[in-house]
């Protein structure tokens, strides 16, 4: 296999916008939810729609409950006159990947990336059971929390994590989210109080699970001088890779995330010091799996936004991680960070991005 060493073009995140995430956005449809976010992503760096060469979005019909749902959402972009545009049925982090490839290929210098998800209309854990193998898993209707519980149980039984450590991760994430005005869950009861709660799906308690969220995110990418002209300190994408593991959960170890480890290697996470990490872990035990896969040390600030445990808008939560790191770099708070996005059950598919200032 060809190793991706150095991308031919310097590409950066130059703008990130989101609205506060909530359990249910009932008064706005998807178009109305994402349109103001897209608008602000352009306005805050003074960019006109016509300056965007390529647009790519990420969403899922299964959340909208409607085939071709993204077609309607295109109205939020104002694709008139016509634009060069694409869509992935994935988290927006992969829409960003497609846009980054488009820029690397020379077909575009700038790109708008957005993604959104409203999980509130359905029963999300059951909806996600439809993401499983249709022959062997789907007929059993295992919901997403039960699936994650199998993985947590394996980790507990193998001595790789404790229920207390899981509660600490939940506590730390939601306490950190006090400083994130967009987080859905801000603050947490004490670890002891968390551990006193009943199981949702043994061994997972409510605090081990990400909240169900409605929300979206928009990101602007630009190459080279376009990026430098638009913002003082672009968040340069110096490593970007994604990998997938087998869906056959009985055939692979659930106590590691090999796709995240491989993507991190390919993206060059370990090539230099990491200041901040935003990990897309919808469950507490998966947070630890990602820390291990990326080889993050004690001196790394992990999920200062609160991560997916504080707000988890499906299809947007991964791209949000890249956006949170990019914002800290653009603000000059950190020099080098890593962000991950995940897709599927049990961390099956993972994307890793390394972002750097200057």
């Amino acid at each position, binding site marked *: *296999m*060809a190793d*991706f060493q150095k*991308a*031919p073009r310097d590409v950066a995140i130059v703008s990130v916008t989101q609205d506060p995430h909530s359990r249910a956005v009932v008064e706005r*449809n998807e178009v109305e939810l994402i349109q103001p976010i897209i608008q602000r992503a352009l306005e805050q760096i003074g960019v006109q729609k016509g300056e965007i060469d390529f647009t790519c979005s990420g969403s*899922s*019909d*299964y959340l909208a409950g*409607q*085939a*071709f749902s*993204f*077609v*309607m959402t*295109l*109205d939020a972009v*104002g*694709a*008139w*006159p*016509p*634009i*060069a*545009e*694409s*869509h*992935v*049925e*994935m988290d927006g982090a*992969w829409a960003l*990947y*497609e846009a980054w*490839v*488009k820029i*690397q*290929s*020379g*077909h575009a210098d700038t790109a708008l990336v957005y993604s959104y998800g409203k999980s509130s209309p359905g029963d999300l854990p059951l909806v*996600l059971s*439809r*993401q*499983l*193998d*249709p*022959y062997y898993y*789907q007929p059993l209707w295992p919901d997403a929390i039960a699936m994650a519980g199998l993985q947590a149980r394996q980790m507990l039984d193998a001595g790789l994590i404790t229920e207390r450590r899981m509660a600490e991760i939940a506590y730390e994430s939601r306490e950190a989210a006090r400083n994130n005005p967009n987080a859905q869950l801000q603050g947490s009861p004490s670890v002891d109080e968390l551990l006193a709660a009943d199981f949702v799906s043994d061994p997972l308690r409510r605090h081990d699970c990400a909240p169900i969220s409605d929300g979206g995110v928009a990101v602007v990418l630009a190459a080279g001088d376009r990026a430098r002209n638009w913002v003082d300190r672009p968040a340069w994408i110096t490593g970007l890779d*994604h*990998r*997938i*593991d*087998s*869906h*056959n959960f009985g055939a692979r170890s659930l106590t590691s995330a*090999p796709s995240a480890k*491989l993507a991190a290697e390919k993206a060059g996470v370990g090539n230099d010091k990491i200041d901040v990490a935003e990990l897309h872990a919808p469950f507490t035990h998966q947070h630890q799996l990602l820390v291990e896969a990326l080889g993050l040390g004690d001196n790394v600030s992990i999920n200062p936004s609160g991560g997916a445990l504080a707000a988890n808008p499906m299809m947007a939560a991964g791209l949000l991680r890249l956006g949170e790191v990019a914002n800290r770099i653009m603000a000059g708070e950190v020099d080098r960070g890593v962000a991950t996005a995940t*897709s*599927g*059950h049990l961390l099956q*598919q993972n994307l890793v991005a390394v972002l750097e200032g200057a």
Partner: protein
Amino acid sequence: MGNRVAVIGIGQTKHAAVRGDVSLAGLLREAVYRALADAQLTMDDIDAIVIGKAPDFFEGIMMPEGFLAEAIGAVGKPLLRVHTAGSVGGSTAIVAASHVQAGVGERVLTIAWEQQSCSEAMWALSFPIPFQQQLVAGAGGYFAPFIREYMRRSNAPDDIGILVALKDRLNALKNPYAHLHEPDITYDTVKDSFMLWEPIRYSETCPSSDGAIAMVLAGEAAAEASAAATGTPPAWILGTSMRSEPATANGRDQVSPDAGKDCAADVFRQAGITNPRAEIDVVEMYVPFSWYEPMWLENLGFCEEGEGWKLTEQGVTQLDGDLPVNCSGGVLSTNPIGASGMLRFGEAAMQVRGTAGEHQIDGAKTALGQAYGGAAQFFATWVVSSEKP
């Protein structure tokens, strides 16, 4: 732009109303193995995979590529899933091509598929309230008024659609993979088939198919090596383009959408083509309802507006015409929706590689593949050539 990229392997399934002899994973593997065999490669040689299909509801699996990852050799590799409505097969191939152009992969596998026997596409294509005004009419009901408007504007004779349907179904008899093989079809059987959505008759409508297509795209060095090993020339990609516009916009022309015109102009500019009628040898375009052949001939710039039907009537688009269109039988003969766009792109590549078998156009050097989707609002095109750019 970017690195050179070529198609070095193409494989498709036998398409049918129901492929009950294979699982979903088996259906995709049939196409993947044929594409790899065509390129004399194995899954180990593939750097990344780009997969596309139309709505997940068609099969009842949310983001099914996760479950398919192992079957298509994606474990440990990048796997990207594209969905751009009916144009998705074309868009998916273009995203795969940009991976090679960007240098993030030297050999990229791209797959597009649909298993329409799992559901009734007609209803999936009839959006309920509150998403939009309810037609309960499927795609044919949506497009029929625009076809009627094309007939009014162009003063085309009523039977142009019949000529297109007859041609495409006869072409399909020369394509062993085509879904519909109707050896007894005649002008009169098409004319006498019942009216579904006036002016679209049953025999002027695409079928609903199970099927998949896969292609291996490669950079210059890998393409040269493949050509030397297989003796089959690569199809060099001279240009790719995607354009989108909203379903509704003030001033939007749904008969000949601006997005389609922009997409054609962009791909021809990249390919250095100034006179497509003279420089393109063969066309595979997305014609799910017969009348879209003359409509897209105009939209793509092969003739002036209002003249497209004359090309069809004069036989220009027949296998032995000077601008053969849909030699494979097209969407009118085979329609696994998510794959239909990539089938156009793949068939165009087969023509310039000289591997189209009985429906091969002798000496085809330059070919256009086109796909569209949504409310005639998403467009994808590529131009391929037997000659390296």
